[in-house]
């Protein structure tokens, strides 16, 4: 109970700070739209082939938006000394980490709320419930991993360089499973369409559970050295 209350307090504080400061969300929205415009020109979309390229564009944009979003989660806290102040409370590093990850997930979901409609507009991608479910499931696991590595990278001087180096290799499973699931979903498949080949939603859910457990265990050592 206390864990949940502390995590919600941290998440609420992060979201309130973001809503007041408006530092990340406008930049993320702009990044998403510009990326899609560039992809449109680069891949000459509009002359056919959107269905094949759209899942790849979606995951590329999502991965780099994630790096932008998670990169800031701990850097500012560490620089201002507020992470230390939080750690000096009985809340515990795992609850603090869970709150930060929850807030980062909400911000990335907000970014996806811009990304998916923008894809429908710029790339004529069919956005279905299956696509939304896939992206949301992947976001949870990516956020927990991204936040852990952001906390680790925030302790170093080269934090902007270190985060992609650490996070991208471990995001590959989400991208592999997620892009195949999105491809199936965009070509008209539903939740059960890919079941013979491994049920991607179940696989993504398994990844989520695995990485949520691992990162909350590791958070204690990363945050509270």
């Amino acid at each position, binding site marked *: 109970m206390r864990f949940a209350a*502390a995590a919600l307090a941290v998440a609420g*504080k992060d979201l*309130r*700070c973001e809503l*007041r400061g408006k530092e990340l969300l406008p930049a993320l929205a702009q990044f998403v739209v510009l990326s899609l415009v560039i992809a449109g020109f680069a891949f000459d979309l509009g002359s056919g082939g959107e269905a094949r390229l759209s899942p790849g564009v979606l995951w590329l944009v999502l991965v780099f938006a994630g790096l932008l979003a998670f990169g800031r989660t701990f850097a500012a806290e560490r620089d201002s*000394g507020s992470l*230390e102040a939080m750690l000096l*409370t*009985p*809340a515990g590093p795992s609850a603090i980490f869970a709150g930060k990850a929850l807030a980062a997930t909400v911000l990335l979901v907000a970014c996806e709320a811009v990304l998916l409609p923008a894809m429908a507009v710029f790339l004529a991608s069919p956005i279905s419930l299956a696509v939304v479910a896939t992206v949301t499931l992947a976001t949870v696991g990516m956020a927990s991993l991204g936040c852990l590595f952001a906390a680790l990278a925030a302790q170093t001087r080269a934090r902007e360089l270190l985060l992609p180096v650490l996070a991208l290799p471990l995001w590959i499973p989400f991208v592999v499973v997620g892009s195949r699931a999105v491809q199936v979903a965009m070509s008209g498949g539903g939740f059960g369409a890919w079941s013979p080949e491994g049920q991607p939603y179940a696989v993504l859910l398994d990844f989520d559970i695995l990485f949520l457990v691992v990162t909350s265990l590791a958070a204690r050592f990363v945050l509270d050295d």
Partner: protein
Amino acid sequence: MIVVRARSLVQRFGDRVALGPLDLELAAGERLAVLGGNGAGKTTLLRLLATVARPAGGRLELFGLEATRQRERLRARLGYVGHQLGLYPTLTALENLEFFARLHGLGREAAWRALETVGMGELARRRLERLSRGQQQRLALARSVLHGPELLILDEPDASLDAEGGELLGTLFQGRSVVMATHDLALARRLCDRAVLLRAGRDAGDPWAPWLLRDGLGAPGGSWHRARAGEPGGEASSLAPTIGSAERPERVRRG
């Protein structure tokens, strides 16, 4: 009851020994000033006591518990304000305190009480970024006491405070053990029971010892900076190099 007991406490950054070996004891209700020039190891010592850093060697006990292993149990009993305030610029004064109160499992009343204690009740709805540095410092002090800690660890808490800041610190210190780093000897003498002078990370003696007072280092209103800079009244600059090698003076209590 002994609140702080450090034995051969050492902190290293790479090959450089930043602190120690240092022995230190603080009894319940006692107020200790930590004095010394820049880079003497004051902040390092305070960070170790606040359990936000782990010592490289030695043993540190707080309230009889081993500080490194039991730090999560200890932290509810500590209040700490470091060089960085650790507050959120876009939140109001009250929201900042409410947030930390929630992490302590406390309600809004505790936040209000702490805010009133530091005389900032009227500024409760003002964002931190619109407060002066001194007001922000008061807010950080309020955060450090909102959960009623038994031991206060403050790193230059007077740095941005106005003339009434000393009175405020005196109020916050009531009924608590305190370790405070400061460059203001007059304030330290007014608020603390005893002092430790750090030099190159080592205990260089009690700056209030009669032999040091006589030579000007601990004179009321004097400053460690002035002494080191060799300015008028800073005769201790020539004395300082001998402090480490001199026979350790007997600890004396003020008053």
